[in-house]
């Protein structure tokens, strides 16, 4: 396991803390891990690059 430290905007931290306080998660770490896992599952590098390249073509040469 690796440890990382980061800064969260106040509002996001309050929402994370609220989920822990209300008993939905054991602690803040569990929420961040779950959020990261979900993000990584659905945000593959190749896919994001493909979408950006399609966007560039549409932006410069699209019809609508």
């Amino acid at each position, binding site marked *: 396991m690796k440890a990382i430290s980061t800064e969260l905007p106040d*509002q996001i931290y309050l929402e994370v803390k609220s989920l822990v306080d209300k008993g939905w998660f054991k602690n803040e770490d569990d929420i961040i891990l779950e959020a990261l896992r*979900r993000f990584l*599952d*659905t*945000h*593959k590098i190749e*896919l*994001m*690059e493909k*979408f*950006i390249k*399609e*966007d*560039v073509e*549409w*932006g*410069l*040469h*699209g019809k*609508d």
Partner: protein
Amino acid sequence: MLNGDYMEKTDSKGMAVCDAGPIIHLDELDSLDIISDFHPLIIPKSVETEIIRHRQNALHHPGIVLKVIEIISPPEPRLLILSKALSLDKGEIESLSLIQENPDAIFMTDDAAARLAGEELGYKVHGTIGIILRAIRKKMRTPKDVLELLNRIPKETTLFLRSALLEKIIQKVEREYSVKKDKYFNALFYLALCFLIF
């Protein structure tokens, strides 16, 4: 920000459904006016809440006709399956529900999973980069203005983009519109001057 030949807007008044990302990112660049030709710009209530949380003033841009819709009915089965498979959040699911009711509209999102779902369902989906580049085509910004916006993305926005990919996009715009960076012109000028003197 509009100048010269680029003052005249087109009259294409298409409809768009927008997720929070593009509105937040364009507001960070003080450029929400480049989506002002979408009439109406539809957002679900959950996206409005998300925008308020991050960029409250974005919802009060004078040039934008925003239509906020509260989604009451659950998503249709295919969208429900996709949303679970792709872990879409409430705003993304509700935006996709809205695009299903307005299939000719453009769906604007910067989230790869939401975009994947939108394209899978057969809709036109675009993100902030495409919208910024479109501003040249729609004569809302000059190519030079757009290059300036692209260069500001890493420092001034929360839009995540690989720097090498952003550089490629910048080079493509420079190539297609024959825009050279001033610094290259300056370097060439001084090189020619030195050559003449010596």
